Each structure stands twice: as C-alpha cells, then as structure tokens.
C-alpha cells in the first residue's frame, strides 16, 4: 500500500511534466503578443522589441522552458506582468475562497446526491425515481451561470435570505462564510449532484439485485441498513470514481461561479489574467488546478481500498 502510494506519486511526475509543457506552450499558441500589450498603443516597434527582450521572449523555446521549469520546481512561478507581484503570492491570497467553495460544494453535493440516488434505486419505477431522474437531466442541461443568476435573483434579491455576492473569510466567523457561499455552492453543485445521483442510482440498482442483499434481508436486517450499509458500500467504488472525474468539471465551474457571485478566488484571478494576457499568472493557476486534479484522483484510487477489501495494491 505504501509502496503503491510512492509509485503513484512518482507516476504523477511525467503527467505533471506534460501539463507543464502544455501550460508553457500557451504563450506560443495563444494569439496576442504580451510585449505589445504591455507597451501600449503609443509604443514604437523598438519599445515593443525592448520589452520583449527584457521579458526574455526573444530566446529559444527550449531554453526558456527549461529555465521556467527549474524555477517552478523551486516554487517560483514567476512574476505577474501587470502587478509585478510573485504569482505564487497572488495565488495564495486567492486560495481560501476557491477551496472553501469547492469544499462546501463537494459536501453539499455528496450529501444530496447519494441519498437521492439510493432512494431512486430503492423506489425504482415509481414517481420518486422519475423525480430524481428529472432533476438529474435538468442539473446536467442547465448551465451553472443560469442556475447561479436564478438563485441570486430568487433567494438574494427577492427573498433576501442570502447575500447577493461577495465573500466573507472563515476567520470572520463561520456564519458569514457559509451564508456567502451557500448560493454559489448550490449553483456549482447542481450539475455535480445530477452526475453523482445518476451513477449512484445505476450502481445501486445493480447491487440491490445481488444475492448478498437477499442474505441481509433473510437475517432480519432493516431496509435502511440494507441500503446504506450492505448495498451502498458495494456501490462506493463507481461513485467515488465519478466524484474524482467530476472534480475537473467542478474546477471549470468554480471559475464561472466565482465570476457570477463576485468571489475573489483563483477563478476570478485567472479570468482577469486571461483578459490581460498575464501569462505567468495563467500558467501558475492552470498548473495548480492540474496538480489538484491529479492529487484528487490519487486520493480516489487510494480510497478504493477503504471501500473494497478485494482491491489491494
């Protein structure tokens, strides 16, 4: 198990390497010349050339990539072209809102989706099942910003239950933190809930037909324990797999959600950076998101062994 973990961590190195290469190439692939943007409309071609040289943009790709990678490995993500602040510092400042949003969304989505899926499987073919499936289809097909604006309009503007936008740090009290993040988490979670509920339902339907479920019933185990202990533990592996895969969608959704609800997170940071062609910041954020995704899926792989004793590494 320990050896496996070490091997998996080592295996992430080439993955991260490829991600790093791609992230760095963005500079060449994307349209727009950062030197020209920095220089402004009034600049002469000589000015642009000077800025390009000062940024090192005139040197060969492979040399610049190696230098950049070496600095990244030392934790130096470079300096923002616009603010002149270290990128790692800028990201660190914005991490809390983003991770808070992710955490709350994940908690909310799992605690809704799993009972929904279990219930739908247990009562399959009834109106409860159809209601859950209808919700799942809606959750998939309505984009996160539409859900976000509808929620903000209804629950913040009309009913005044939650703040319209903004973020309160957790250090200022958990109440404000939760109330500010509730609507964003619901908006971001709706597609995720749909995904998890569907897979939970499908897996549970299969598991509930297994012989060991009948055995549990024959022992006098109650319906709730059959569903949530005997069956759900067997359904766990596909469910956590989809949670891991769906995490990518969650990252993408967080960027949009932060814009809708004006949350000063990493998502907003990267949107602003893209608009300004602030390449060091874009590279830093994309690298961090990729790294998070790789780590989440490593955790998912290790969780398999917790839920299914037959899986051993």
């Amino acid at each position: 198990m320990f050896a496996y973990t070490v091997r998996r961590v080592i295996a992430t190195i080439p993955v991260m390497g490829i991600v790093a290469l791609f992230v760095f190439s963005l500079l060449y692939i994307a349209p727009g010349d950062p030197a020209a943007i920095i220089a402004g409309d009034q600049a002469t071609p000589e000015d642009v050339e000077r800025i390009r040289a000062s940024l090192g943009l005139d040197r060969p790709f492979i040399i610049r990539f190696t230098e950049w990678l070496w600095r990244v490995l030392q934790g130096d993500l470079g300096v923002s072209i616009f603010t002149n602040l270290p990128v790692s510092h800028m990201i660190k400042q914005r991490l809390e809102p983003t991770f808070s949003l992710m955490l709350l969304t994940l908690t909310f989505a799992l605690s809704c989706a799993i009972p929904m899926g279990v219930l739908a499987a247990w009562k399959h073919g009834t109106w409860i099942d159809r209601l859950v499936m209808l919700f799942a289809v809606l959750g998939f097909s309505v984009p996160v910003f539409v859900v976000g604006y509808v929620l903000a309009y209804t629950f913040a503007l009309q009913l005044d239950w939650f703040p319209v936008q903004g973020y309160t740090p957790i250090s200022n009290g958990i109440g404000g933190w939760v109330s500010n993040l509730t609507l964003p988490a619901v908006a971001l979670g709706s597609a995720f809930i749909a995904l998890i509920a569907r897979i939970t339902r499908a897996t549970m339907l299969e598991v509930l037909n297994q012989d060991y479920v009948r055995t549990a019933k024959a022992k006098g185990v109650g319906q709730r324990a059959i569903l949530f202990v005997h069956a759900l533990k067997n359904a766990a592996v596909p469910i956590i797999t989809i949670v891991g895969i769906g995490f990518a969608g969650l990252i993408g959704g967080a960027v949009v959600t932060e814009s809708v609800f004006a949350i000063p997170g990493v998502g907003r940071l990267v949107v602003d950076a893209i608009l300004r062609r602030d390449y060091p910041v874009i590279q830093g954020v994309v690298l961090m998101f990729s790294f998070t995704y790789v780590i989440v899926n490593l955790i998912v792989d290790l969780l398999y062994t917790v839920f299914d004793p037959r899986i051993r590494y």
Partner: protein
Amino acid sequence: MSSSAPLLEVQNLQTHFGTVDGVVRAVEGVSFHINAGETLGVVGESGCGKSVTAMSILRLISTPPGKMAGKILFKGTNLLELSEPEMQAIRGKDISMIFQEPMTSLNPVLTVGRQIGETVMLHEGVSARDAEQRAVEMLTLVGIPAPGRRVREYPHQLSGGMRQRVMIAMALACSPQLLVADEPTTALDVTIQAQILELMRDLETRVGAAIMLITHDLGVVAEMAQRVIVMYAGRKVEEGTAEEIFLNPLHPYTRGLMGSMPKLGSSLHETGRSKLTEIQGQVPSLRKPIIGCAFAGRCPNVTDVCRQMAPAIELKAPNHLVACHYAPRVAVAA
C-alpha cells in the same frame, strides 16, 4: 403424524408473479407442515417452485411483482399477516435461511465476523465486541480452523466450502427453530458436499432446529430427511416418510426422478438394463392455468381423465400422500 401442533404449517400457499407477459404461477396451492426438530426434504427439478416456496416462508419475495396467498403458520402465527418490522424480528432469529450460492451470498465488502455478528446484534442487542466473540464461537462450531483470524477476513479470502460454513454459522447464530436450506450443497464439489451435510446433521442434533432441506439431489434427501415432499410445476405431488418415498414411489413423476438417478455399482456401459431413463417432455408453462393433472403432458400412463381433472392429493398408503388418479391404493390403516 404427531398430535401436537407442527412448528410450521403452510396451507394452500400461492405465490404468483405479475410479469409483462402475464402472471407466473410459481407456487399453486401447496400445503405441508414441518414438526419441531425434524428434517423435511423438498425435491423437484429446477423451476418447480421449491425455492419460491422457501422464499415465501421468510417473505423474501418482493411484492409487487410477487403476490402471496394462503397461510403460513409459524407456531400458530400467520406470517403473511405480520407487518414488515414484525417479520424482520423473525428472520434470522426464529427462522433463518441458507442459500444455494455461497460464492455470492456473502457481502464481499464486510468481514465474516461482522456478517455473523450483525445477526446477533440485531436480535439479541449485544455489543459489537460480544457479537464478534459469538462469531468466533460460531466459526468454531462449524469447523473453521483459526476462527480468531478468520473472523476478521473477507469472503474472498475463503474457499467455497468455507463460505458455506460461514453461511451456516450465520444462519445458526441465534439458534433458530427452523432452518430453511435452499440447495445448500449444490454449488460445492462432492467431498465438500459430504462435509457440509455431515455438519448440518451434527448441528441438527446439537441445536435442535427443524430443517427444510430443498434440493434436487435425491441422494442428499435420502441421507438427511425423515419426511419428503415432491413438487412439480408449483404443486405438491407426493408426500411421505423418506422410506416410503424411496422404497415405494407412487407418483409417476417421483418414479421418473428415481429412474433418472444413477445407481452405484451398475455400469453405464452395459447395454440396456442400467441405462439412465429421462422424463420425456418439458415442464408445462406456469403462465397459464393448468387444466387437469400438471404432469399429464409427460406422464407415460396418461389418460383422458388426467387431462381433464386435476387429481386430489390423497392418502394412498400409510404416511403417504399422492396426487395421481392411478396411484395404487395400498391398504391404509385408519
């Protein structure tokens, strides 16, 4: 039969399933009883309603699509009238069940000890630690070596025979009065079969549980059961003491079953005389009501009477009931 009330009395049980192409009449008016401490063998080929009967007793049939009618009296209480929580209190405690498939009947993600202990915790309200202790005792009882270690293992770490022993341990953990064993040895290889049967017989005397032993293996029945019922197409066609059924089978279906069983010591290569016989034809569809005798389509002695009128089950010899118009009536002592 004994004058005291039987432990289990099934009266005119009907279990039907609603499907898209009509109602399947899996069990059609079966009556039988089991006395305390005895072993009743239930024989018949696949699809004759043996397993459905067993599942009906524990009410493991999901309704709908299933539908049960008749009476299942356990110590005088009609199980079909109990609420689901009342039924849960009986399952695993008063009546427990062993299933045919030891490989798939245990939960793969829970330890063996947890699965045995759960029954005890549910029905006797003991702590988790005491339940594990009981699980170790039960594993010892069913002859699993190193029970202290095995109790923490998962089903995939055990062989098929050991898993069936675990199933038996689980079924017997709360000392039930009735054990329903649905083909307990079918999935096991022959040497393990003998061990499991030996174990069941041993436990029967030690725990004193009555056993309803469902099997298509007549050898198993001969070895274990005091009384036997023979089922065909959801009906009981013959009932009697094991001795009567084996020495003096009266129903043509039972005779067919006996004829299709190889006998030890007779060579299959000798032409003619010791060839296995098969029962010609197929089991009738259970989707439409059967008019006349259910076995009429396959019976070698069939007459028009059989095709038009269902035979009643009657006492044709001492301790021997048969549902056949032409079963010879042997002198029945009053």
